[in-house]
């Protein structure tokens, strides 16, 4: 079976640099899935990645293709600036929830609304990992973080922001999908979603967005096994995994 070849072999698109991620972190898995997809589509030599400011800030050490840094939240603007002048390259951004849904919300929304032919990989772990577990736009109601020590109170802090649903109100996005990295099945679904999203770009169909619900045991305040449960149960209840937009049409509201 083709899928299993990676059990023994590192994808070419991944370097052999050990990552700095905590045990049980979702980022490493997402990196690997992206690398597998880039390999399988044969686009490693024309892919340009954009690393966020967040725990994945060092992604350029882990991917074995061209990667640039972007200022916190500005990935979608940087992606626009690259893709517009190199339309035949594959451009994707890799962003956390603080980066994409707080400080970079305007850039995220407008790039999607322009229908930029880019792929956005959104790793939602409900917290600001890098700065020490503060509240993110996607922190669950009642969830305790460094800056919501008594739990997120939707009355003063607002309820969690649902990005797929928000982007699904726009006309131009071509593919919007949410997956949960809570189990081997979830991982396979995530890979399929990424494959779909990159293929959409490769075929010049337009904007693709994949939200990946991911574990951050360190700041979700649980052990790695419990973190997967947190992703599959509490997170998935607030952020239901689904294909929201398919072939440019609303598939799920």
């Amino acid at each position, binding site marked *: 079976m083709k899928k299993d070849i990676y059990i023994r072999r590192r994808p070419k698109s991944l370097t052999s640099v050990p990552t700095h991620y905590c045990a049980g972190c979702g980022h490493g898995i997402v990196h690997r899935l992206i690398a597998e997809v880039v390999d399988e589509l044969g686009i*490693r*030599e*024309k*892919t*340009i990645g*954009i*690393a966020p400011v967040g725990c994945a*800030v*060092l992604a*350029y*050490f882990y*991917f*074995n*293709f*061209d*990667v*640039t*840094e*972007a*200022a916190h939240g*500005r990935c979608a*603007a*940087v*992606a*626009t*600036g*690259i*893709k*517009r*002048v*190199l339309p035949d*390259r594959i451009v994707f951004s890799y962003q956390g929830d603080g980066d994409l849904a707080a400080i970079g919300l*305007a*850039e995220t*929304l*407008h790039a999607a609304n*322009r229908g930029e032919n880019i792929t956005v990989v959104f790793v939602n772990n409900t917290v600001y990992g890098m700065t020490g577990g503060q509240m993110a736009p996607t922190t669950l109601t009642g969830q305790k973080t460094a800056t919501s020590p008594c739990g997120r109170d939707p009355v003063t802090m607002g309820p969690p922001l649902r990005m797929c649903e928000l982007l699904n109100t726009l006309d131009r996005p071509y593919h919007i999908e949410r997956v949960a990295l809570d189990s081997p099945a979830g991982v396979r679904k995530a890979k399929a979603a990424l494959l779909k999203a990159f293929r959409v770009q490769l075929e010049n169909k337009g904007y693709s967005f994949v939200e990946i619900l991911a574990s951050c045991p360190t700041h979700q305040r649980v052990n790695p096994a419990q973190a997967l449960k947190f992703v599959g149960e509490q997170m998935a209840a607030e952020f239901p995994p689904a294909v929201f937009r398919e072939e440019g049409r609303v598939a799920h509201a």
Partner: protein
Amino acid sequence: MRERILMMGNEAIAEAAIRAGCDAYYGYPITPQNEIGNYMARHMPERGRVFVQAESELAAINMVFGTAVAGKRAMTSSSSPGVSLKQEGISYLAGAELPAVIVNVQRGGPGLGNIAPSQSDYFQAVKGGGHGDYHQIVLAPDSVQEMYDLTMLAFELADRYRNPVMILADGRLGQMMEPVVFHEPRSSPPPKPWALTGAKGRKPNMIRSLLLGEGELERHNLRLQKKYARICRAEQRWEERNTADCDILMVAYGTCARIAKGCIASAATVGIMAGLFRPITLWPFPSEPLRRVASSAKCVLVIEMSAGQMLEDVRLALGGSTPTHFIGRMGGGVPDEDAVLQKLRSLVRSLRKRKSL
């Protein structure tokens, strides 16, 4: 003879950028520089180049960042409040050593201020503006022709030094019309092996400004400082008018330099020998040439549309060697020739008094 075209300053910048091979323009509307974006919206797409009206100045400067990462020429333009928003991006461009051209057609501040011409963003432009130890090259035109010439130069310098370059103009220069002679760029863009174009047949490239290794960021900064020193040695530009035997040396750039030029002749008719030293590069500031020129003058008069910002660099350059005076307007006020002449007269009077004592 080469054809002369009557043009607005803002449009001259846009036309120069197009002829300089600007691949992409990103901007967000703000007065008094809207003609740049409007011109680019009309003329970039018809040449198969990129025009995007960004959702903010933050987005615009980061789109410029992306295009620079891709090894292409990019420009953004704005006016003071919008340029404040670009500072983060400029710091990143400097840190990652990416070429880019940024235009600031200054207006009155602070805050929303007004839309009248001003020079009150001098500090922001030449002293850093964003965070970190960095410099951008700052070019200050004083005519519509120079809006054209210096924009073309800006693209060259940006590529040569892999550094952001700012055109620091003001609302009057942006809005005025003068004849312009177009010329073509002197060279084509250099090869950019560092750019991200896809790792085809080579090792992956990365662009970053985050350097976490022990001592790594300091070494990077030392290298940047060496580059800045090289720029300081090679790129100082200035203009002198009537400096050989003047009593009073005026120092002014941009719109104020135009006013000073007008004053030289009218001062001469009343027996005042005035000259002008006009910095064209505000960073690097032509300190040595200024010191040399000022050494034969009896005093220096700095003229600015600010509370006295370039004045600090003039004083630093002169180190107290020549008495330095100042006349400035703020909040969109423009010094008029009469006020400058009056100041020249009073300076001459006090010079004579001192001599007779």
